[in-house]
């Protein structure tokens, strides 16, 4: 009789069990190492091939980022100097949402009270609080913004405010101001795929809110791990030869 009480999980085939979305504290478990296969970081908007970017249909819903006229001029100036002025070239914190679709892995470590996102690029750490706390009462400037999440069914909804204005959204010079507001929606489509969506608004830069949609895939290679990439140290690495006996 005891076997009748066992969970059906035990009777599922191996393949089905592997595809099942893991849960933690009653919520989908996003733990794992993730990466986009898209070319989003090269340019969020649709673009033909060019010397510094593969062609891509982009990840902007409706294809066009709705810049205010003056801001569009700034974006075009950024684009013209992208090969020298993209903050990523200095290994600065990529920001939100750029870190999510940057083509380098990031790890999600999940607890009931928060999700810790460790980005291999720069080894920067973003905390998404899911403990019922609210944005700070006073305004701040964070490179990754201030993230407060809640669960809408099985979707993690994250409200992100309090930004710096020095991060770019991609290598094409798309940008924002300190008043950017990002609302993310994270949803597991299956055990190994995240449907990541974000609404971006910024009254100083865009004429209306706009959306991006991109899939993130789980790294399933055996023994895969992040390899810390403190790339901002590379410029002074030469000053620190490891001492050795002469």
């Amino acid at each position: 009789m005891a076997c009748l009480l066992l969970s059906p999980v035990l009777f599922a085939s191996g393949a089905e069990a592997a595809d099942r979305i893991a849960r933690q504290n009653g919520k989908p478990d996003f733990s794992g190492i993730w990466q986009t296969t898209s070319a989003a970081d090269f340019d969020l908007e649709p673009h033909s091939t060019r010397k510094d970017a593969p062609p891509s249909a982009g990840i902007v819903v409706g294809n066009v980022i709705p810049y205010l006229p003056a801001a569009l001029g700034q974006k075009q100036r950024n684009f013209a100097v992208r090969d020298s002025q993209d903050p990523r070239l200095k290994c600065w914190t990529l920001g939100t949402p750029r870190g999510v679709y940057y083509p380098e892995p990031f790890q999600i470590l999940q607890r009931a009270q928060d999700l810790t996102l460790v980005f291999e690029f720069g080894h920067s750490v973003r905390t998404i609080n899911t403990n019922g706390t609210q944005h700070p009462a006073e305004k701040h400037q964070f490179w990754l913004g201030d993230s407060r999440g809640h669960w809408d069914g099985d979707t993690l909804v994250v409200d992100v405010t309090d930004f710096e204005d020095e991060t770019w959204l991609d290598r094409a010079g798309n940008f924002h101001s300190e008043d950017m507001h990002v609302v993310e929606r994270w949803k597991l489509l299956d055990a190994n795929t995240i449907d990541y969506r974000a609404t971006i608004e910024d009254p100083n830069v865009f004429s209306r809110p706009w959306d991006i949609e991109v899939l993130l895939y789980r790294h399933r290679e055996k023994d895969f791990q992040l390899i810390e990439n403190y790339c901002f140290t590379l410029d002074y690495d030469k000053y620190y030869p490891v001492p050795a006996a002469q």
Partner: protein
Amino acid sequence: MRSTETRSGPRRLSLVAAVWVVARTFASAQPAGAQDSAAQPATPAAAPGIRWEKSFTTIPSGRWTGHRLGDGQPDIQGDWSNSIANHDNFTDPQGGTPGDPVRRKRALGPRAERAPSRVSDPADGQVPFQPWARAKQQEFAAGLWNATRQEYIEPLARCAPAGIPKSFMWHGYEIRQFPQAVVFLFNSGTRIIHLDGKPHLPQNIKLWNGDSRGHWEGNTLVVDVTNSNSKARFARTGEFASENVHIRERYIFDNAGKRFDYEATFTDPTVYTQPWTVTIPNRRYVAGDPQDGWHYEVPLANSPGKELIADHVERPCVENNGPFGQVAVPKKAAP
């Protein structure tokens, strides 16, 4: 436009202030952490100040009888800081930096009045350097206040990760636990200690924080570290290892959950004459503890409930480095 005032707002972390020094002339370069030394005697009346113990009792390895997480690990999550000193001096932790041009308010008393060396083995409290390595360490120490060469500026002053073991002497830090890893969020750098038993990375990969594999033995987290690039110095007195170093760490937690001892044995036949062990005592801080600008800089979250919740904010460094940052990206014109 961002103002200086908002730059240095209360949730900006203090490492930022230490980094602007690099662009100054070498002769006058003042490495990171100088502010910490200066801050020790000056305790504002309203703040608890930066407190340091002169002695401590070591914690024995043994059973864990405290709270456990759902996966069975001892629950040691939260905010911690070492209890004896910053990174000024490795073997005389409260003795200050050698050659410090800032005159002390009080002369140093007898050595016995200060915390013991962090080197707990061998018994003489000294890193057992080979002669060439001792000479190099002393060269680094002499260069601290007379930085005539780029390599005399400690990497941490340029926002490099503090590495092992200096991360435990550089501000408070947070530990987060997960079934697959224990994660240390240091003031400069982050360590992921893998608990899943996978093999180390290939040895031709060298990292500021090395590559860590851990497991629990009762109240002790045992960690094996390889793949170190050994560019980080242990302290401002210039102690170091080479890329061949093998570090075996033991994090020994007391069952009350208030303290732990960090013990790490360094084996590196290319630099030392024998393996040696560093011991660093640490204590826990909790939400609501007074912020002191060094051990505990964690703000309270904006929470609708009555429970005090510690809020953990990002820890950028290079981006806020004056001469490297700010002006490095031209300000965008207002749209």
